[in-house]
């Protein structure tokens, strides 16, 4: 017997639905209207519906595709690196953390800092005249590379992102790894399976859902990167570090091209929705299997 009648359930859901409609549904609707309108800051309250011209403008804009490419590469590289390093740390540090769980707190510290602050911090850390890294490189090697030059900026930005967010992947993997019953590993050991076979055939398969979820979360987060990139290099020399979020921000505020910016944001929304749907489908397939 159900705890609540359908009418009661609907009643309890009403405030949440109302909240979502007001704070997510309304802006989304306005976004959709603006994306097919000719609109400026002067005509925010009176947009003229003009069709899909803004979408055509965005899709024909080389800078849009360049920013999509930057965001895609950035998301892929950082998500992969964070997951691989996080997995290694989770497996390698598991015995130590089981014995001294207090060590978990310092490992999580980077997650506590706002991405914009991380960007500002590294701007200082990598500065030739104020930062410790170039200082010691000059002292020991007599030279220091240009960390934020066009050639090195992508690597520097990716490393900064990876340093901040690897603990997130590590936390998820460590919890998943800890959740595997030791009996299974003991049974495998009794059968004479070496450690790498245990890892390949027991640990990783059992951790697969967490691995997939962590990768997708980090991919989405990397794809919409804004704060630390903006603080470190802005959009980069010649626009070389323009992520999709920076592209939208610049189109909206700097160029006043509201329709174009909103159309790009709708495309970003659709791409995110596609990724989330993919995750959902994968999860559904696994459940059915």
């Amino acid at each position, binding site marked *: 017997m159900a705890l609540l009648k359908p009418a009661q359930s609907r009643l309890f859901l009403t405030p949440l639905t109302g909240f979502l409609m007001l704070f997510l549904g309304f802006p989304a609707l306005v976004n959709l209207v603006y994306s097919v309108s000719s609109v400026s*800051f002067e005509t925010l309250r009176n947009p003229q519906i003009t069709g899909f011209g803004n979408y055509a403008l965005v899709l024909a804009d080389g800078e849009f595709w360049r920013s999509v490419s930057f965001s895609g590469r950035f998301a892929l590289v950082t998500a992969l690196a964070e997951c691989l390093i996080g997995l290694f740390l989770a497996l390698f540090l598991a015995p130590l953390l089981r014995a001294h769980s207090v060590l978990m707190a310092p490992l999580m510290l980077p997650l506590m800092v706002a991405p914009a602050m991380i960007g500002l911090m590294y701007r200082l850390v990598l*500065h030739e*005249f104020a930062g410790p890294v170039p200082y010691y490189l000059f002292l020991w090697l007599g030279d220091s590379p*240009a960390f934020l030059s*066009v050639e090195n900026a992508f690597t520097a930005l990716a490393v900064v992102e990876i340093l901040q967010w690897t603990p997130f992947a590590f936390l998820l993997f460590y919890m998943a790894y800890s959740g595997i019953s030791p009996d299974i590993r003991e049974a495998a050991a009794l059968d004479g399976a070496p450690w790498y076979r245990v890892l390949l055939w027991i640990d990783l398969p059992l951790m697969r859902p967490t691995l997939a979820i962590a990768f997708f979360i980090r991919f989405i987060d990397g794809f919409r990167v804004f704060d630390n990139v903006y603080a470190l290099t802005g959009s980069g*020399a*010649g626009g070389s570090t323009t992520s999709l979020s920076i592209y939208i921000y610049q189109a909206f505020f700097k160029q*006043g091209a509201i329709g174009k910016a909103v159309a790009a944001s709708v495309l970003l929304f659709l791409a995110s929705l596609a990724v989330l749907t993919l995750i959902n489908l994968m999860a559904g397939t696994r459940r059915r299997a």
Partner: protein
Amino acid sequence: MRLTKTLLVVTGLILSTTGLPGLAQAKVTVLGWPGGSEETALRAVAEAYNAEPGRAEADKVELIFFNRDGFFDKLQADMAAGSDAFDINLVATYSIGRYAPYMDTIDLGADAQKTFGDSVLKTMQFEGRQYGVPTDLSLHFMYYRKDLIDALLQDEAAKAKYAEIAQKYLGKSLAPKDPDSWTWDDWAATALYFSKQVNPASPTRYGTVLQMKNLLFNMMVFQSLPRSYGGDWMDKDGKITVDSAAYRTGLELYKKLYDAGASPKDSLSYEYAETNAAFGAGQAATALQWNAAAGDLTSAEKSPAVAEVTGMVAPPAGPDGRADHIHGLGLGLNKAAKNKEGATRFLKWLATENAALAYAKAGGSPALAPEVVAKVAAERPDLVKLGDFAGKYGYVMTGATSAKALSVYELQAKEFTGYWSGQQSLDEALKKTETGMAELLKK
């Protein structure tokens, strides 16, 4: 009955604590530039204005501030929404056109001309109409190391090396000069001479620090170089003239210095703060930098390595003489203001000599007419230089107060840094800039 009475009392209390005082004291609300000397100075003059005898309650000024980060974007969103939360708002030279549709023009009276002079008042004009009172002015100084230049001027062997470097990199033999008579070539030769990559015996690592980050403010710093070669954004017919010999010379000179190692390798990510850090560390012989840095770079506490040996002159000269990019911050009247009369009275007062002097004494940086600035010269010697340079060399590019001026600077920043970083040719950069500017500045 008791409930009705209670409701009436509660309603009365709410009205008496919220709405009614607002009606009785319709103060003038001013949205100022937060943080820094501008806020301190504005607070001081607002206090003085409110304290004047006979000041009506409705005329008293109340200040509001929010964060600097994204200030102009937030302000635009507020004003576009018709916000009446402030009667007077901040305005900057390069964004007047952007805010003009939401602002009223003001007549500041004859006093303003005497206080500031025409070239400074123009920094607050759009299409010939006055939109604000200029409160603070920004321009650029060429900062240089007096000790290094003095030593160079007295050393014959160094002069020979200097001439050799100038010949090799600039194609002409030059002799060291006093910085106040530098041309851009003299500055470039000096920058090359004081760079270890060019001259391993240089006492500094770099000869200059170029601000080359893809940032609109860096374009303002750069602009004076092509301007002194006769460059402008457009001609009198509205044709974009950025693809010119003047811009080519300026852009090529920056790239030449950067490629030669006369400026730090990371210059493409440098802006105001990085330039200060490099010059302040004693590792750069010159820097074209905002006047606002003067305080820090000459402070023994903040820049102990260079405070005593930092000199400041106007930017070097080109064939058309010297040019110094000026832009100002000011205060103007919100079209949706609730108290326009009170706001206009405050703005007119702010444009008087006494108010401008009070603002200067409180730490602000107004550019004042020579006879006015003389009255605070003892307390604010930097303002003398500011007013002097603004009057003699100050300029605003044609179109630089239009609604899309910020976008033009953004466009230039993207395309020019693309050239400096080697991602595109000079021809491509100028062509894209010209096309983009024509689109942005079309009538």
